């Protein structure tokens, strides 16, 4: 594999996948510890009606209206879940199930009813994304990385994903102490006077932004996988939150890179002609990592639980 082939065709998707995985895995750690892991699942389902509404309102397939629509839909979904949970006195899991399936169904129906046949907008695309198509045509080899003109032609998804990742990493660093305290002991955080409700809402919004940005580039299946699998595997490796974050970042990048390579080159090595879905493969690799962590991770057992072995 030479730079001439690798840089334009494989480097951008690899980087986008890795940054998308990182941006989702960081908030995923906190969601996991707060037992809100499925929020990521709910958000990535409601993204579909959001982008369809964004498209219907503006009539063009461009990124910003759709991202705004998706973010709005994510917030609407979170508010609806809370409303149904509190006013209807329904347990959170079921409230979530009601909201995201309904919104997803509405999204599918809107999509089928509206005239979207002329544009590239369909359910499959929303689910698996299209990581493989994010190529960098202006690159001619490794030296293009120093060429400003060629760099400007990088897929815009890469810049967005990097920006979202940096923003989320900065926010996490900035709110590290309050977020940690509120995650582990909400009552204590409240007595310290920390804005617990605002922190929790902020976390969900940050997760929604990560999900929407990543969804645009890589499809919702990776988003769900990256919200849950790397943090869950990291949780089985360590008892310290800082280390857990590090492990989850490493697992996220590993899944993205390994998944992309296996999807792109694995079938060729086995003698097949066509590559398989990179999004699906990345999710699969993250699952394999989780299973390995669940079997051999040093902190896999519940504290005080009976151990069979």
């Amino acid at each position, binding site marked *: 594999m030479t730079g001439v082939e690798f840089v334009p065709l494989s480097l951008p998707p690899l980087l986008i996948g890795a940054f998308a995985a990182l941006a989702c895995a960081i908030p995923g750690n906190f969601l996991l510890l707060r037992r809100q*892991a499925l929020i990521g699942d709910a958000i990535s389902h409601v993204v579909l009606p959001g982008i369809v509404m964004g498209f219907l309102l503006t009539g063009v397939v461009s990124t910003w209206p759709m991202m705004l629509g998706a973010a709005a839909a994510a917030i609407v979904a979170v508010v609806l879940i809370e409303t149904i949970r509190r006013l209807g006195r329904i*347990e959170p899991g079921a409230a979530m199930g009601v909201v995201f399936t*309904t919104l997803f*169904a509405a999204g599918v129906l809107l999509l089928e009813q509206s005239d979207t046949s002329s544009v590239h907008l369909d359910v499959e695309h929303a689910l698996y994304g299209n990581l493989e198509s994010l190529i960098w045509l202006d690159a001619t080899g490794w030296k293009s990385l120093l060429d400003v003109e060629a760099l400007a032609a990088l897929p815009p998804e890469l810049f967005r994903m990097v920006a979202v990742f940096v923003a989320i990493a900065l926010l996490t660093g900035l709110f590290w102490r309050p977020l940690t305290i509120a995650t582990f002991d909400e009552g204590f955080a409240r007595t310290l006077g920390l804005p617990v409700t605002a922190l929790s809402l902020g976390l969900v919004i940050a997760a929604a932004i990560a999900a929407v940005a990543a969804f645009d580039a890589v499809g919702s*299946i990776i988003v769900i996988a990256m919200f*849950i699998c790397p943090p869950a595997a990291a949780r089985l490796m360590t008892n310290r939150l800082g280390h857990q974050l590090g492990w989850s970042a490493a697992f996220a990048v590993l899944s993205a890179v390994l998944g992309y390579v296996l999807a792109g080159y694995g079938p060729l090595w086995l003698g097949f002609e*066509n590559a398989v*879905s990179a999004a699906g493969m990345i999710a699969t690799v993250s699952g394999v990592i989780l299973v390995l962590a669940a079997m051999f991770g040093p*902190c896999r*057992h519940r504290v005080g639980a009976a151990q069979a072995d």
Partner: protein
Amino acid sequence: MLALGYNAALVATGAGLLGVAAGVTGSFLFLRKRALVSDAMSHATLPGLALAFMVMTVLGGDGRALPGLLAGSALSAWLGVLTVSWLSRRTRLGEDAAIGAVLSVFFGLGIVGLTVIQSLNTGRQAGLETFLLGSTAGMLFSDALTIALGGALTLALAWLLRRPMLMVAFDPDYATATGRDVARIDLAMLALALAVTVVGLKIVGLILIVALLIIPPVAARFWSDRADRVVLLSGIIGGGAGVTGALLSGMAPDLPTGPIIVLIAFGLFAVGFFFSPGRGVLAAVLRHRRFQRRVHMRQGLLAIAQGQPVYERLTLRLLRRAGLIRADAVATDAGRAVAAKALLDEHRWQILRADPRFETAAALYDGLRPLDTVLTPDQLTEIDRNLRPEAAT
């Protein structure tokens, strides 16, 4: 129904039976607070579907044969369920994390499988994508029959197992203490949900089938506090949504069946959410308003009896409407009488609450309840003996 033709009627029957089975099965899961396990299960069907297609094609048969596909999907969904319970029992991860992990990983694996099929199957579309969102277009008679039979069978099994499942859903500890195998009953519950999921794949699709297992029980829960009625009602709601959705999409062929059924179920949920007499939002608002009025009325009357002026608008309006004060906020004769009675009641309560003999009655004090609805006339006389003369007048 018959005007729509034989095929539409068949699909509607299948969807109805499926809806009833899903509503009934889902309500056990909902009462057990494990509704979202079915989400992991339904997404976990995809790799099995893809694998079954490949195996059947390699063996030289028709890869799209429904029974084979359903068997494959059932197998991988069961593997998904076992993985969820393995992860949540053997590691420190919560069930929600296990659900999310299984859901995304199995679905990702399934997508890999679909792309493999695409590259193997040059020229001919496998059509497995229709299982994502469901489709009734081009459904064969045998397919509809499979679905209807599967739905009916699941329903019968759920009926047989209803008692142990309810007991486990409500009180697993009690069920264990009475010698029932909770783990096995839980698995049976999941197996029924799995049957619904697999049977519903063709009509509703694997992303939305979970809605049929969750929304009808939640909607039914608004209308009753009795488990057997919730189960029954949930079956009716699910069946109704299934039949109506299938008929609607039969009349307008571009409407996909699954989303329509889900949206109708959600409509029924919304009706209960707003209008149910016990747990509905409207009823709660009305209850709150009524309570608010009682508090205002009582406070207004106490103020009148003690000769204090009333300024609060709502209180004034309520008193005026009841004819207890005049337009200039001066109490009428009737108003003074009612107010004196309210004050007397308050004094009696104070005595009662100071007296340890009336401890249980004192717990009922909420500042609103008239004491003569709590005590017998004899007890009231006893209390009155302690009233000071200035209060008794």
